């Protein structure tokens, strides 16, 4: 019977193993993941969730400094850049104004931006539920998130026309959501900004100007009111920043340094010692330029002696034909970082104030603001007292002041209804090019986005 006894022991042992450990299947949360509720129970972790959005905004979507960011693409699309590389690419399509609904840059602008909007909505919802984050931090983060949501939606609607304004993270809702008109989107964005204005602190929340404070919110309010032709409010907010004493017109040579006193909102590179992506993307060292050069038309639009042409444009080669944008000068690495990408600066506020004043016929204001910009560029002062000249002057200043900066040229031409200015370099220009096509893939997934923008 000894054998039987052994056998039974073994069997019982097996039975024991089979029965013993349901807990075996309980695996703990891995070290690289953290529960959502925990994230929003702590000031620092909640901040991490928000700064993640800033880094996404810096690297992908509209504000990316590379060739699929809006600065480069719309520079090619309008009359700022001339593509010299004959190889097929997204920006070549933009240059030829043959952007279709399968353009990879269009798809990535759309999907990256909506991902960023999801992230800010997630922060908003997380903070709303949290009971443990300190009230100051709660207000500041919420305000920053609302402002980011407004800014991203504003860029989307200016670029794609009618779009949905996403307010929640619920995918069941967002899968079926329909479009709102451009006007509705801008109204909603302004509303978000007005709430944010009350929430964020007047001072920058960290040591540099790389996160959103009240001035950034007000700067975007000024811009959005300008786009809405609300001259009073545009001027009010622009002047608020101009008169705040925090920001000053920076000499041309130092405007784009990270310490620039004119910068209102900068994006900080991902690592200490890095500089802007823009510097590496726009510059080249020998001719013909390997990707794109500044358009001859833009070069011709500078007045004689404009310091901005001297400092922000660099000619390459002997024939003075090929030139590159040279606003950001420091490529690659420096110790410490020298330049940050500037999303908004005080010069734009002067131009907004000037444009609003022109519409209101406040010639004294107009001349003061526009001359502040011109004086700094080493140009003769103006004395204008009629609507047409004033508008032409401010349009010209915007063109040479803000070239190759996040699509200002395109959005300006659009709101001025001035696309005829492109006809000499873009003879094939058509009315419907003022909005980009919606990505085809998205229309297939959500038919409520139909119809496709007219003409595509």
């Amino acid at each position, binding site marked *: *019977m000894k*054998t*039987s006894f052994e056998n*039974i022991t073994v069997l019982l042992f*097996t039975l024991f193993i*089979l*029965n013993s450990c*349901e807990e*075996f*299947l309980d*695996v703990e949360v*891995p*070290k*690289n*993941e953290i*529960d*959502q509720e925990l994230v929003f129970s702590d000031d620092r*972790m909640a901040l*991490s969730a928000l*700064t*993640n*959005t*800033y880094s*996404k905004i*810096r690297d992908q979507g509209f504000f990316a400094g590379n060739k699929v960011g809006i600065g480069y693409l719309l520079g090619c699309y309008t009359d700022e850049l001339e593509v*010299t*590389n*004959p*190889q*097929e690419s997204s920006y*070549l399509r933009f240059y*030829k104004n*043959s952007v279709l609904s399968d353009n990879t840059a269009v798809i990535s602008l*759309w*999907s990256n931006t*909506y*991902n960023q*909007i*999801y*992230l800010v909505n997630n922060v908003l919802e997380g903070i709303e539920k949290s009971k443990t984050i300190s009230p100051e931090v709660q207000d500041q983060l919420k305000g920053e998130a609302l402002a980011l949501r407004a800014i991203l939606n504003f860029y989307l609607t200016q670029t794609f026309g009618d779009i*949905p304004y*996403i307010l929640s993270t619920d995918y069941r809702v*967002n*899968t079926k959501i329909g479009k709102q008109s451009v006007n509705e989107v801008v109204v909603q964005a302004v509303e978000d900004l007005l709430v944010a204005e009350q929430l964020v602190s007047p001072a920058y929340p960290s040591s540099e100007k790389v996160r959103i404070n009240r001035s950034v919110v007000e700067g975007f309010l000024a811009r959005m009111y300008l786009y809405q032709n609300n001259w009073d409010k545009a001027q009010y907010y622009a002047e608020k920043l101009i008169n705040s004493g925090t920001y000053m017109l920076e000499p041309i040579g130092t405007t784009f340094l990270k310490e620039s006193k004119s910068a209102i909102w900068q994006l900080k590179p991902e690592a200490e010692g*890095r500089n802007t992506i823009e510097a*590496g993307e726009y510059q080249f*060292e*020998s*001719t*013909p330029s*390997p990707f794109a050069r500044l358009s001859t038309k833009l070069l011709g639009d500078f007045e004689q002696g404009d310091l901005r042409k001297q400092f922000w444009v660099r000619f390459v080669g002997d024939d003075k034909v090929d030139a590159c944008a040279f606003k950001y000068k420091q*490529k*690659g*690495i420096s110790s410490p970082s020298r330049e940050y990408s500037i999303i908004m600066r005080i010069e734009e506020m002067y131009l907004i104030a000037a444009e609003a004043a022109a519409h209101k016929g406040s010639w004294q204001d107009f001349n003061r603001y526009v001359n502040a910009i011109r004086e700094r560029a080493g140009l003769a002062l103006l004395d204008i007292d009629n609507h047409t000249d004033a508008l032409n002057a401010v349009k010209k200043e915007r063109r040479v002041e803000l070239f190759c900066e996040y699509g200002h040229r395109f959005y300006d031409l659009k709101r001025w209804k001035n696309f005829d200015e492109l006809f000499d370099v873009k003879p*094939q220009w058509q009315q419907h090019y003022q909005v980009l096509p919606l990505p*085809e893939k*998205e*229309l*297939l*997934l959500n038919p409520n986005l139909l119809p496709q923008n007219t003409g595509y």
Partner: protein
Amino acid sequence: MKKFTFAALAVPLMWVLLLLLFFSSNKIHAQETIVLSGVVKTADGTPIEGVTVWQQDTDNGTQTNEQGFYTINISPNAVVVFEYIGYKTQSIAVTGKVLNVTLTADDDILEELVINAGYYSVKDKERTGSISKITSKEIGQQPVANPLAAMQGRMAGVNITQSSGTPGGGFDIQIRGRNSLRTEGNAPLYIVDGVPYPSQSASDPNVSIYSFSGGNISPLNSINPSDIENIEVLKDADATAIYGSRGSNGVVLITTKKGSSDKTTFSLLSTTSVSTVAGYMDLMKTDDYLKMRRDAYVNDGISTYPANAYDVNGTWNQDRYTDWQKEFVGGKAVSQNTQFSVGGGSGQTSYLFSAGHRNDATVFPGDFGYKRTNFSINANHQSKNKKFDTQINIMKTSQKNNLMSADFTKEMYLVPNAPELYDNQGSLNWENNTFLNPVAKLNGIYRSETEDLISNVTLRYKMLENLIMSVNGGIFENALNEVRTTPSTIYSPSLNRTSAESVLHTSDSKRKGWIIEPKLAWNLNGAYGRFDALIGGTFEERTQQAFSLQAGNFTSNELIFNVANAGIKMILFDTESRYRYMAAFARLNYTLKDRYIVNVTGRRDGSSRFGPDKRFGNFGAVGAAWLFSREKLFDDSSWLNFGKLRISYGLAGSDLIGDYQYLNTFGISRYKYDGVSGLEPLRLFNPDFSWETNKKLEGALELEFFKGRLSSSVAWYRNRSSSQLVGIPLPSLTGFNSVQANLAATVENSGWEFVLRSSNIIGKDFEWSTGFNMTIPRNKLIAFPNLEESTYAARYHVGLPTSIVKLYKYTGINKETGIYEFDDVNKDGVLNADDRQTKVNLGVTLFGGLQNSFKYRNWTLDFNWMFVKQKVYSPDYYGSYLGSFNNQPARAADYFSEDNKDARYQIPTTGANSKALQAYQNYNSSDGVVIDGSYIRLKSLQLQYTLGSQWLRGKTLTVNLQGFNLITITKYWGSDPETHGSFLPALRTIAMGLNINF
């Protein structure tokens, strides 16, 4: 409650077995013994050494010596058993003191062909499930590095395609079709010597995406085909349900070679092979190309060529012509494979040791290649009383891959009059900054090092003659280190980049796993039939750690591989994951009169991949077989030797969704901002998903005629996969591309499988045999509630295969504008998603293989044709629009012009004609780019000569000539119908090998 349900299966079965134990406990009484002796010989009188002689139902036994002589002490009237491999076992009741025995060879080898079904083995003729098998003989006929390549075209129902011809790349395997709507959800379960082996590529696509299609590296690259004895593929419910949740997509069992207890043998194999790309595409020559470009400018109304039209404006020499395919993928890849093994043993113990080294070059320019070194040890031991045996396997593999960080295949569309790659000094030619020289990419390197260890131990104890307890334990380890460099030198010098802008990307992945499977097998043989029962459990854990780093700002490009030299270091991710799995399984098989067989299998599974309330699932199957040829009716049949009808039905599942998907968590983002590293939501939260289930039904008829000279099998199967675990695609508006959920859709895979084997000629000197297999798979989406409302509306259609695409109907070229036109189905004047109503099936609709084997004296010739019927995207789909700064297929010279209104292609444009571009985009979404990609391919061929053993005295020397992908017959006009993408096509290989055994 949960505990009860889990134990519900295990406990009663255990008790049943325990009770049986008590009733059948053996009765051994102390008695006097007698000495029995004798000689064991073969039929022709040769004594046999090593025959096992033992008294039945005891652990009392011995073996014969060199003269075939034995002595044994036994109890009187005992039954003595004589056993020797390859001979029929004899049991004789002892009457005297001398017993001479003649063993007869077991001719009916087929009868005894045993198939490994994973947890148990079954005689081929008596199996109730659907299992395909190939052996080392077939595997050895092909000069391939990956075991999956050796299976191509040889198994019914198993469709394998190579995704890239780059050494160390990936394969796609589908067993009985696509069950899941997710590509990665279709991988089978791989089991190597009892240890589950990962089916997913461990590669970090961020690092490898430019070198391999989809960044996919087949994990089976680690296994040397020469070490494999058998590969079995389990297909139907009867065979796979015992693997429960992981058997849904089939199970691939890989069994490595074992030692035999014969005399010591050495084997040395050396093969040298040369590979080239199997096919090139016919591209435009300079004249046609330049004409097309000039016409494009004319069509766009541009009369002066812009400064950047280097090809036509005179900047580049217009008389130059280069076939860039020959330049970039036209190389000869030389491979060297050496394999050594020694095996042997004595009595109760045997071993096999093997070592191999393989070295593959690439067809790309530059000095790149793949190396693999592997060692394996196998040892078996059996106790003298035969009650206990153990088996140990250890396999160790190292792989090194050294490639450039780009697949050059895409460069074939380079403008044909582009300048020379190198100048007179032999340095890169940038043609005064007008030429983005693709060879500069050679400066970017991809390197990977993989270390694998698979080891397993099986302990088996025969508690009673009919009750065996065993434990199988195993581990695997897989470590992969990948590096990709992007030095500043890959860019045009006009950008003036320095090593400060060079980037190194490195990624480390470590996967580990262990498994323990205790098992109890019992059988009972009596007048009422034979019972085989099995019960067991599985405990398994797998962990994966991954770490990835990006470094930049190097002092010099020479130091780019040294992270310490980098000025900037950024950790991209540092992750770990753990997967745990437990199960209880059982099998009960009943055979009546050797001809009626019922097989019941079941499994209860728990997986950590699901949320706490969804962890457990039950799976099971019933199979039955009727060996009707054993009925009296067929006793005298001269033509039918064997006939079997089998049927099976059951449920298997799948949990291939990745770990932790049910958690609502944030991960650490690779991005830093303002000194703070980011936290980001990892997925849209859905805790309520669970097992995907697959109901499988199969019926088959197996026949053998004319003494086994002709055998055939026909099988019909129908698998219905439901509760699909999918990442439901979402519009980007939601912030993500997909959300993990069970979809109520049901996908049906059905089909017919035919297998035919015949020995056409069996002569003294000449033999000819043929094997044929063919599969006709059908895939159908049979239910999808609310499809029209879902995000799948534009992709699927109920009643049609899941491999369809919805496309525009291409109607031809407009004779006025010269632009492609499409059917505006709803006649609303706009071409949009509503008009994509033409449904084209991009799947495989028929495939199979034809093998022939000839033997004449010492010569053998084997070849394997593989055929596939499929529709694929034409090369146009991967190209660019006509008139762009890229070369085009030669057939595109037939484009529309005033003189050629019946052209195949539309008018060329430089990109300025947005109507033509829009039409080009629509054309790529129309049935115009879908073509017949069917092909017949001479997959492998081997001619072998064996030097006779009579004058080598037991030694054999084999010389062989092998070919792979030698001939392809197809209407497909691109490079290769098998890979049919934009990566390196499959390679054609010719190999010469030498094999010595002594």
